């Protein structure tokens, strides 16, 4: 009988494809929007991910994220270095500046000053050039998103000169970095150069990046730093999460994406509910005949369940494939750089599809179950 149920479904091509479209579109909307949301808010932690060597971030107690920080006096570095369990500690500066390109364009950029000696604080990988280029005078490394923003028509940004707060800077390398939440261009330079590029107040040290000694845990060292220095210290994971939380708490993004995901759910219910009800209504005589012949209500429920399951499975697969294609298709776009689909999202969409089909299926099947077998004689 289940085979008959499937043939009944696929035999009505218009409604079958309508149902697939409804589930597929709903899955696509939910999966794609949640994927963009997760990847976007994770960029609140891009500053942390781009400095992978740091196991503990030390900052002024009022600092909240890599982009919302309050500078500390330079002596903070020595105080941190004196804490037991700290293997190494390096200065890290984060500031904003304006650059003027040789074409005269003005662009706000982020300046990241990394340790002069070890270059800790640079992204792990370079897209072009070597990290050691930073040892050259006036040298900066630009992130790969920045090259597309500042030099969209150039073959390579290497060697390009910038006017950075009235000072000369030369791009000698391109880093393979995770873009920031706002996709701001980021220029990496040595800490000492950054102090020159970015005029400021007496205190300039944004963060102290810390590596922990062997046998120590980042959590324990962070707690010890806080206790002994009075500064705020967070492990890499805690500070990354703080960046994500800041985006969630201070922007309308969760609401906007939440509304879209909800609409995807509603659209799914509307399209699938309507089409499924019409499909069952169109076949009500056949179901009535089956009931008269001797097919039990339980078997009818199974038949409708198989129909719903088949539509759900194919539609869901189409929706997920559509999302993968979308992410792949836009992977060269700087905005979507590094986007991935967390495994939890397809599971959430699957749950949404199951709920959509359960709601619409229950509503639609009522008409079938309420059909009197005797109605086939009327």
């Amino acid at each position, binding site marked *: 009988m289940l085979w008959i149920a499937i043939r009944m479904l696929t035999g009505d091509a218009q409604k079958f494809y309508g149902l697939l479209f409804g589930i597929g579109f709903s899955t696509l909307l939910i999966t794609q929007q949640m994927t963009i949301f997760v990847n976007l808010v994770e960029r609140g932690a891009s500053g942390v991910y781009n400095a992978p060597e740091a196991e503990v971030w030390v900052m002024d107690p009022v600092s909240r994220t890599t982009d919302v920080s309050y500078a500390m006096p330079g002596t903070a570095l020595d105080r941190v270095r004196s804490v037991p369990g700290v293997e190494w500690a390096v200065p890290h500066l984060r500031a904003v500046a304006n650059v003027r390109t040789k074409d005269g364009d003005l662009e706000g950029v982020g300046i990241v000053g990394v340790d002069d000696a070890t270059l800790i604080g640079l992204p792990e990988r370079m897209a072009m050039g070597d990290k050691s280029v930073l040892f050259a005078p006036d040298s900066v490394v630009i992130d790969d998103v920045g090259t597309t923003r500042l030099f969209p028509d150039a073959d390579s940004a290497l060697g390009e000169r910038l006017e950075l707060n009235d000072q000369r800077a030369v791009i000698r390398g391109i880093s393979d970095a995770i873009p920031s939440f706002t996709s701001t261009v980021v220029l990496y330079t040595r800490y000492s150069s950054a102090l020159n590029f970015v005029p400021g107040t007496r205190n300039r040290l944004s963060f102290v990046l810390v590596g922990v000694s062997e046998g120590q845990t980042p959590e324990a060292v962070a707690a010890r730093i806080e206790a002994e220095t009075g500064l705020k210290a967070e492990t890499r994971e805690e500070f990354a999460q703080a960046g994500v939380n800041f985006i969630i708490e201070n922007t309308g993004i969760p609401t906007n994406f939440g509304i879209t995901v909800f609409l995807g759910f509603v659209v799914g219910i509307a399209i699938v509910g309507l089409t499924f009800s019409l499909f069952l209504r169109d076949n009500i005589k056949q179901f009535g005949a089956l*009931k008269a*012949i001797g097919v039990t209500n339980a078997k009818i429920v199974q038949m409708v369940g198989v129909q719903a399951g088949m539509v759900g499975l194919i539609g869901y697969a189409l929706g997920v494939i559509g999302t993968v294609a979308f992410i792949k298709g836009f992977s060269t776009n700087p905005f979507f750089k590094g986007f991935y689909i967390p495994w939890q999202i397809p599971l959430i969409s699957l749950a949404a599809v199951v709920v959509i089909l359960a709601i619409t299926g229950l509503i639609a099947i009522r008409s079938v179950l309420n059909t009197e*077998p*005797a109605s086939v*004689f009327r």
Partner: protein
Amino acid sequence: MDTSTIGNRASEAAICARGIARDFEAGQTTIRVLHEIDTEIRAGEMTYVVGESGSGKTTLISIMCGILWPTEGEVKVFGTDIYKLSDTELVNFRLNNIGFIFQQYNLIPSIDVASNAAVPLIAQGVPRAEARERAKVLLDKLNIGNQADKLPRQLSGGQQQRVAIARALVHEPRLVVCDEPTAALDASSGRRVMDLLREVAVAPDRACIIVTHDNRIFDLADRIIVLEDGRITHDGKEMPDGH
């Protein structure tokens, strides 16, 4: 209760209906459409139930074949009081003992003719391939074996009715119930279908009830029961004068 073993009581009436009454609610009003019907349907006969629209004939056969509960009375089909069965037992009883032919055929449009004819067997749990083979044998007998792989919409009305007949008989039921089997057919097609039905559906151990008001086929009946306003007004070999 094992409902598949019903039918070894050929000496009994195929259907024995006693005191059958049926009420329908129409708003605040209760309308009685069948009044104290007492009748028996015998195996080996083609029995017509005849009457004007609204006379209660469809209600009567619905009750006789176990798909509509009577308000009063009892119905025994091959000795089984079918309305004392549980819901599941009654459904299984129908599946194993009754074949239905509907006015609009009610074939499933997206499966082929052989599978349509095999539906009762498939519902009984017979493997699909075997069920189709058994259905094809019957379709051959009904002269549409060469249409077995076609979809119902590719067949004429008369051919679709033959598929419906095959579906009603494929599981060898003891009772065949037909609702206006010729209503959608022209005179000659209707006649051919009825001849065929008599040939394949009427057997010594099988009862066949036909609801109709098609006077072109009255002469093919073994027995005619006439209903008027929910009461049997005639029961005989031929139609009474004036009808």
